[in-house]
């Protein structure tokens, strides 16, 4: 178990390094000097040269890379060209908003997804199953921006039940949470249904029934506890996906989060900002899947024994 964990950690470290390199190289192949872009057409050559040297952009690529990595490890991601503040500071305040958004999306996705999945499995191939599974397919095929704009139009604009945008109160997070969580709810519902159906065919379920447990007891005490395993692992991965996949939702609902910072980084041709946000989002995903693996081996005793 310890060995496989170490192995996974090493693997995650390699992938993370690869990701940093890839982002770094991709952003450096953009034609044009970023300083010139930043200062506009009328900048004089001497100032551009001085600024370029100041930011270390005249150094060879590998030196720039090592400089970036060593300061990034210390939490310094450089200064944003377009906003003039340290990237780490900008990301810090944006992260709270994104975290709130991801939490509300997860809350929606998991309660609705698990609920629908259980109901579907219990009523397999009957009407509720068909309705819920139809919905979950719809959820998977619905682009996030459509869900977001649709909700915004109906509940914020037409019915005026909830705020249109912003982050002022907890109510502001309801619609974005549903929009972002919609997709994941569909996935959770499907995986819950499959896992529960598989578990319900196990011998120990028959044993429990034979011992005289009622249907609800069998479901909650025996079937669900075992069926939740893949669901929980998936949830761990999903949460990191929600954190990093909020670009569209944040744009539609004007939430100042990591995703919007990234869009700002792109539209402002602001390499430090884009680099920092892309790195943060990808790191979250990698750590999320690492956490999911660990969680799985902690939750499933069979894997623990095998690994030892």
């Amino acid at each position, binding site marked *: 178990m310890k060995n496989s964990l170490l192995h996974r950690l090493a693997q995650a470290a390699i992938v993370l390094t*690869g990701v940093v390199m890839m*982002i770094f190289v991709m952003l450096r192949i953009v034609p044009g000097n970023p300083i010139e872009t930043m200062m506009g057409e009328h900048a004089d050559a001497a100032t551009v040269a001085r600024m370029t040297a100041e930011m270390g952009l005249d150094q060879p690529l590998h030196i720039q890379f090592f400089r970036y990595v060593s300061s990034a490890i210390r939490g310094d991601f450089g200064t944003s060209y377009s906003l003039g503040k340290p990237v780490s500071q900008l990301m810090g305040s944006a992260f709270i908003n994104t975290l709130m958004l991801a939490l509300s999306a997860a809350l929606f996705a998991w309660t609705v997804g698990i609920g629908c999945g259980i109901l579907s499995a219990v009523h397999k191939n009957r009407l509720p199953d068909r309705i819920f599974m139809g919905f979950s*397919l719809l959820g998977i*095929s619905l682009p996030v*921006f459509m869900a977001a704009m*649709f909700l915004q139009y109906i509940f914020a604009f037409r019915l005026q039940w909830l705020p249109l945008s912003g982050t002022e109160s907890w109510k502001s997070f309801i619609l974005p949470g549903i929009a972002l969580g919609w997709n994941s709810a569909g996935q959770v519902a499907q995986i819950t249904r499959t896992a529960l159906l598989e578990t319900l065919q196990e011998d120990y379920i028959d044993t429990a029934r034979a011992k005289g447990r009622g249907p609800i007891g069998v479901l909650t005490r025996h079937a669900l506890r075992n069926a939740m395993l893949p669901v929980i692992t998936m949830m761990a991965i999903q949460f990191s996906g929600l954190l990093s996949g909020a670009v569209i939702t944040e744009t539609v609902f004007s939430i100042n989060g990591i995703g919007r910072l990234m869009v700002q980084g792109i539209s402002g041709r602001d390499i430090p900002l884009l680099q920092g946000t892309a790195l943060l989002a990808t790191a979250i*995903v990698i750590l999320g899947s690492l956490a999911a693996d660990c969680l799985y081996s902690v939750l499933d005793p069979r894997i623990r024994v095998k690994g030892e």
Partner: protein
Amino acid sequence: MILTRRKQAEQAMDIALQSQIGEEERFGDLMRRMARENKTAVISFFIIILMILAAAAAPLLTPYGENEMDLMHRLSAPSAEHLLGTDEGGRDVLTRLLYGARVSLLIGVVPALLSLILGAVLGVIAGYRGGIADAVIMRLADVTLAFPSMLLAMVIMYALGGGILNVFLTLTLVNWANVSRVVRAQTLQLKNSEFAEAARITGVSGGKIMRRHILPNCLPTLLVLFTLNIPASILTESSLSFLGLGIQPPNASWGLMINTGRQYLYNAPWLCFAPGAAIMLTVLGFNFLGNGLLDVLDPRQKKQ
């Protein structure tokens, strides 16, 4: 998005690992079986065909031109003359939708095909040659898959700039890794099969074995991946265009139509919802079809 990709890859991997698909039933029989058993897949297939025909025959289906402005009738609501209303330039939304279908379908198909080719070639090399080639290709695939696909697409689009060719390239770079992993797994199996062994003994070169014996056996899996990569590409492009990073005007993709229509969401909601519905229908169609193929090809499903 990342999750669906992961799930699909896992499922496709399962097919790959049980590579005896072709043995009991021929491909044509499988398709016939799908047509019998999975009505949704069949309906989806016809919806897709219908959509392709409509996109191709766009000039015949509508009296308006793609960029024909009519400033007297800006933002008019759906009516008998304009079935889906008009946009901020007085252009007929249905017409733009039909022409947009050309771009959006192209964006679904071309990158799916390109990433299939790239992924299959790299995957078969990694699986067959092993060693350093395998290690390098698979680490590259790992790094690519570690990015959330939307984020990777955004960074690449930033580096390349907008435009349809760059969208093709970006989506190819985003989607190849899944394919290569699946093909690699299948190659590892086929490499030691009797027919590959026989070919090796008779002196057939490695390259020829890969081309002639291994890749053809991966075709059913590749077909599933192709069908499922199309909606993924369409969704990613529409999200990119929604953020203004994808297709540039005057080309009209559905995502771009939504992007421009967004400013008028409150007084002319059809500008967003019509192309949105088109995207959904197409994505749903390809997903149903892909899942239908997956069901037919996945031996696990037969038992149930």
